[in-house]
């Protein structure tokens, strides 16, 4: 689960990680009030959306006065912000973070993440702050410090020293940095983060360290033990069809193509998208109804796919294992009867109770296109659009 910068900074404050003074605003008036309350200029006005690259897109501006703060807030609030992470359609800005400007001596990079390959928690740091870290890693890997922490024993003093000295921090800043990093690690573990990134972490002119930006992703699988973090979920940042699908525990991702598809199992669902593309069409979505889907889940899956106006044809690909083909067929029939099907639907079923499933579909009188195998299914659906 992604959260906003201002929410991440709330967590930072709770765990003793220094951040600039500031607050979140939902209107221009609130933004001006926060700016006035900070007591000095410049202040920074930052768009709050779930995407990086906000500065380049015009979503982060420095204001030297109250009037400028008001102007910037007015410009950014309500704008459609386009960054390399939002896609060309951009994202509507509905909230702002207004913060005290800082005197920056140096910009650094600091992150904590789960490393799949070593099954460790890895701290990454670099003196090349404020830059695209992937680019730094690709061009100058020697400028990246990587320290692996054993999750069973947790963070030790030497980890903090390796990173602190590695960043060539001034001696006066080392103690503050060590506390910051230790607290950040605690925050990471206590909240089941999957990624925590500060870019830039700044060194101020008086040798203090502070998180100027904050990006935190929470492991969705761990939300059951962090009920309070659920409040941070922002439905405005999610696709409405994806929100609807999540209510029924469907794994759904809305894409740009026009061939809708419903599949059981994530790997097969990805492979089905690929085979649609191979046949010369574009998948409109990823939809995994899961191994143990019920007829009701299947019904909702089809209903959601049909709500998507881009969709001109649907491919249903089921390999019945735990999810039996007859149960699946009942769901398809129920959805079709409730919503009506006005576009071509190709069905390919295989596995447990496949004969019974085919009988149910045939007896329903629905106008479905049967496919004998996966290749046949993809060709038929591509021909149907």
């Amino acid at each position: 689960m992604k959260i906003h910068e201002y929410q991440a900074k709330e967590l930072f404050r709770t765990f003793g990680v220094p951040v600039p003074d500031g607050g979140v605003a939902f209107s221009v008036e609130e933004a001006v009030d926060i700016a006035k309350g900070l007591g000095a200029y410049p202040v920074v006005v930052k768009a709050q959306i779930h995407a990086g690259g906000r500065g380049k897109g015009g979503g982060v501006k420095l204001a030297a006065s109250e009037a400028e703060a008001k102007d910037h807030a007015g410009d950014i609030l309500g704008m459609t912000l386009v960054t390399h992470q939002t896609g060309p359609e951009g994202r509507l800005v509905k909230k702002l973070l207004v913060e005290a400007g800082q005197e920056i001596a140096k910009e650094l990079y600091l992150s904590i993440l789960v490393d799949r390959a070593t099954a460790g928690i890895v701290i990454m740091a670099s003196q090349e702050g404020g830059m695209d870290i992937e680019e730094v890693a690709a061009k100058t890997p020697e400028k990246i410090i990587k320290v692996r922490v054993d999750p069973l024993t947790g963070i030790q003093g030497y980890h903090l020293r390796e990173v602190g000295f590695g960043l060539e921090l001034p001696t006066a800043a080392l103690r503050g940095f060590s506390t910051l990093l230790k607290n950040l690690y605690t925050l990471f573990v206590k909240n089941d983060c999957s990624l925590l990134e500060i870019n830039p972490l700044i060194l101020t002119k008086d040798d203090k360290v502070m998180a100027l930006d904050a990006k935190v992703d929470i492991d969705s699988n761990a939300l059951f033990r962090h009920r309070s973090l659920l409040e941070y979920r922002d439905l405005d940042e999610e696709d409405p069809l994806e929100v609807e699908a999540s209510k029924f525990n469907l794994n759904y991702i809305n894409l740009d193509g026009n061939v809708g598809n419903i599949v059981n199992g994530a790997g097969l669902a990805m492979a089905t998208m690929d085979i649609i593309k191979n046949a010369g069409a574009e998948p409109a979505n990823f939809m995994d109804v899961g191994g143990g889907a019920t007829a009701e889940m299947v019904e909702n899956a089809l209903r959601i796919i049909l709500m998507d106006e881009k969709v001109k044809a649907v491919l249903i690909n089921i390999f019945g294992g735990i999810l039996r083909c007859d149960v699946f067929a009942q769901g398809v029939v129920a959805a079709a009867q409730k919503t009506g099907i006005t576009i071509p639907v190709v069905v390919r079923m295989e596995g447990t109770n496949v004969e019974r499933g085919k009988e149910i579909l045939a007896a329903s009188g629905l106008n479905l296109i049967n496919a004998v195998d996966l290749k046949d299914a993809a060709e038929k659906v591509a021909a149907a659009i």
Partner: protein
Amino acid sequence: MSIFVNKETRLVVQGITGKEGQFHTRQCIEYGTKVVAGVTPGKGGQTMDGVPVFNTVRSAVEATGANASMIFVPPAFCGDAIMEAADGGVELIVAITEGIPVLDMVKVKNFLAAKTCRLIGPNCPGIITPGECKIGIMPGKIHMAGGPVGVISRSGTLTYEVVDQLTKLGIGQTTCIGIGGDPVNGTNFIDVLGAFENDPDTRGIVMVGEIGGSAEEEAAAYIKAHVTKPVVGFIAGLTAPPGRRMGHAGAIISGSSGTGQAKIEAMEKNGIRVCKNLGIIGEVCKEVF
């Protein structure tokens, strides 16, 4: 021959009295798996279809000589269950559960590093040696005993699709293993590839990967250096957008890493025949093996 499991394998099922546990235990027994015990804390002394239930894995192992475990415990408690199995004395742990927090798995994986047992999964369909032993949720009847092909995959139903095509073309399997779709898991591609290489009855290997992480790239380099048997590969998710989790927790392209294209290139560069159309993977195998 086969790898990791055979007709001698003695299985204990953790979470045997739950809905999923009961259903799949019955399926495994029907297939011929020797299910010797179950574990559900607080239900020790009961039986499930004649299988004795114990409160702890250790007591189940002591009483029945179980040497493998299949786990259906809910995600919040599954890390605990895996560690219990490891300390309880089983040699092979197959964790079916989906949705374990990654920080739990990170701890489990480091805990297991000091043990000799093997973990398959989590978030996986399990392992099957056709005709001998099925530990997991895969439909048994799509498989064909006797080899000569070993199958290894990060996915569930995608593996069934591949196996089904093989069987329909008369190509049997030695052992089929789903290593799971989570970012941090137990057994990886390389462990299984090494075992298949050493199994005289396995004469060819199908490796099914997907986007996310770098396990396929590492496996490809390993194959070039250590595997003499022909390998057919498949990668799912070429059309997946970056930054989105495609159902499996581990199936995500982060920045520029974990793309399907990079995996296919690494596999082809190392001599693996990559099939790019799932609809014909059986035919490709027939040609190669």
